């Protein structure tokens, strides 16, 4: 399965800008083809692509449009059409009704905690399996595969019972542990596939200079992995930030609720749901994530593509 376009890169594939080839290659073709008029098939595929793009993106635009409308405008309007009014009151009400600030802090704590665990544990595990190597490493590899296949629901009841026993219910840790545990296999596999690219000669040279496994890990593997760490953190933090099921199960008190749980409170909080304020709240919670994603999407795309194609 050496079919990924990034495979052609000679060295450890950098996470950023990992895929230059497609656009480059096609660009030179553009100029040759530009002068000819479009074939009907091309027109059809463009229209289709555009229509599907509307389906994917318009609901999100709609959130934004609704968030800046006043109530009357929202009620009187159909699906399309630009807002007739512009107001930021909805945002004020959103902050009044909910506890968005605290929710965001909680989400940050959980996301940072779990990401740190995933990166540290993922790197250590991948280093032990891929670089150090040991008898039975294939068994350990297969064991981690279980975590990718098995659905998270299986852990809910046992963890709830265990947490109740040791007093972990209703803590940040109760969310961090399972989120990190279930994301660990994927990041471990990503780190392993990256470690393959670090040439054996580097390790040999370091060993001759007298460096032990720990020193090599700290001085060679770790500094070389920065791009992969960014990829792993990007992919996982989106899933962790958006987690609903663990938080909903293990956290009961308002002070610990993360963003998704806080958003849930908007449904019918005042008897009748205040939709424009709710959409303002959705907007506030979604925008930072979207911005981070738009800025760093290359790192993430690289992880998704190589993760799946290298299996």
């Amino acid at each position, binding site marked *: 399965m050496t079919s990924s376009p990034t495979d052609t890169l000679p060295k450890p594939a950098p996470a950023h800008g990992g895929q230059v080839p497609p656009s480059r290659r096609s660009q030179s073709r553009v100029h040759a083809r530009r002068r000819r008029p479009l074939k009907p098939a091309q027109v059809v595929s463009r229209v289709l692509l555009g229509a599907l793009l509307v389906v994917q993106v318009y609901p999100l635009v709609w959130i934004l449009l609704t968030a800046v409308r006043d109530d009357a405008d929202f009620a009187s309007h159909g699906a399309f059409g630009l807002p007739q009014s512009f107001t930021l009151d909805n945002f004020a009400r959103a902050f009044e009704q909910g506890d968005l600030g605290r929710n965001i802090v909680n989400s940050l704590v959980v996301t940072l905690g779990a990401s740190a665990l995933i990166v540290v544990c993922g790197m250590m595990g991948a280093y032990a399996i891929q670089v150090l190597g040991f008898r039975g490493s294939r068994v350990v590899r297969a064991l981690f595969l279980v975590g990718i296949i098995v*659905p998270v629901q299986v852990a809910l009841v046992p963890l709830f019972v265990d947490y109740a026993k040791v007093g972990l219910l209703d803590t940040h840790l109760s969310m961090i542990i399972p989120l990190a545990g279930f994301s660990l296999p994927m990041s471990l596999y990503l780190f392993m596939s990256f470690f393959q690219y670090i040439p054996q000669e580097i390790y*040999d040279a370091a060993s001759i200079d007298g460096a032990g496994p720990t020193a090599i890990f700290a001085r060679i593997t770790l500094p070389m992995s920065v791009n992969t760490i960014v990829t792993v953190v990007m992919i996982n933090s989106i899933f962790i930030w958006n987690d609903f099921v663990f938080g909903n199960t293990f956290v009961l008190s308002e002070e610990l609720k993360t963003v998704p749980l806080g958003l849930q409170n908007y449904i019918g909080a005042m008897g009748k749901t205040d939709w424009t304020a709710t959409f303002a709240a959705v907007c506030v919670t979604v925008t930072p994530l979207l911005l981070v994603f738009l800025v760093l999407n290359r790192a993430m795309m690289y992880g998704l593509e190589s993760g799946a194609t290298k299996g």
Partner: protein
Amino acid sequence: MLPYRSRLSVVGFLLPPLLLFGGAVLLPIVQSVYLSLFSWDGITDREFVGLENYRHMVGGDPTFWTSFTNQLGYLAVCLVLQLGGALLVASLLLTITRGREVVKVLYLLPAVISTVAIGLLFQRIYSYDPVGLLNGVLDDLGLGSLSRPWLSDVHTVLAAVSAPEGWRFVGLYTIIVYAALLAVPRELEEAARLDGANAWQVFTKIRFPYIRPVWVTTTIMATTFALRGFDIPYLLTNGGPGQASELVTTYMYKTAFTSTNYGYASAMSVFIVLECLVAVGLISLLLNRKAVR
């Protein structure tokens, strides 16, 4: 492999990940199997009942079977939208010459949004009174007779709670399939075209066989994700109206945390695990065998 390594260093590096993974994933799986053999409400003493929970699940609980068929429906909708959509969009992407990267990013946007936000969004999209996005579009197209309260109509509710999940991840699978399609050697396609193959033949005879390994991975991903689908149905309808959109996952959740029947819920979660394992086995068997032929 490092030339100098001690057993201690291997253990040292392996222990933290194994502890985390064991504690959060492996141990709970074992515990689920164990708990599924008991009747337990979490407060009184556990009572060992052997396989009674499983017998009840398979033989004496029509709700379970309803939820299982619903889950299959949910799976079907997700697979068609995600895999079909991904293949279509990825193929279309190959035909355009510029802006591919931007289109990919835009398609992936819904995957970045939390399920709760998506739940809120689709609650409004499906809304009947006041008129939501979907019914509004139908009205505008002159198809007003089709508009209905999608989430409280028993005939449409299952499709309505499945579609958002499908919609959410189209972009994810598009990116994977697109990366695979890019790797198909151009020479092969050109050669086929020179031999007079049309676009459809190029696709079925060259492109698709070439990306089959990736396709297997993608199908497995989409299937196991859909079999564990929970958030959006739970948030949108919580299984209702009646049991029209009840999935095994939401039924299990309610059994565990509303009726606090931990034993029976554990049996169901073991069932979900088995379901995923069987699905993975079947997919790799079916798709890989075709490749050999």
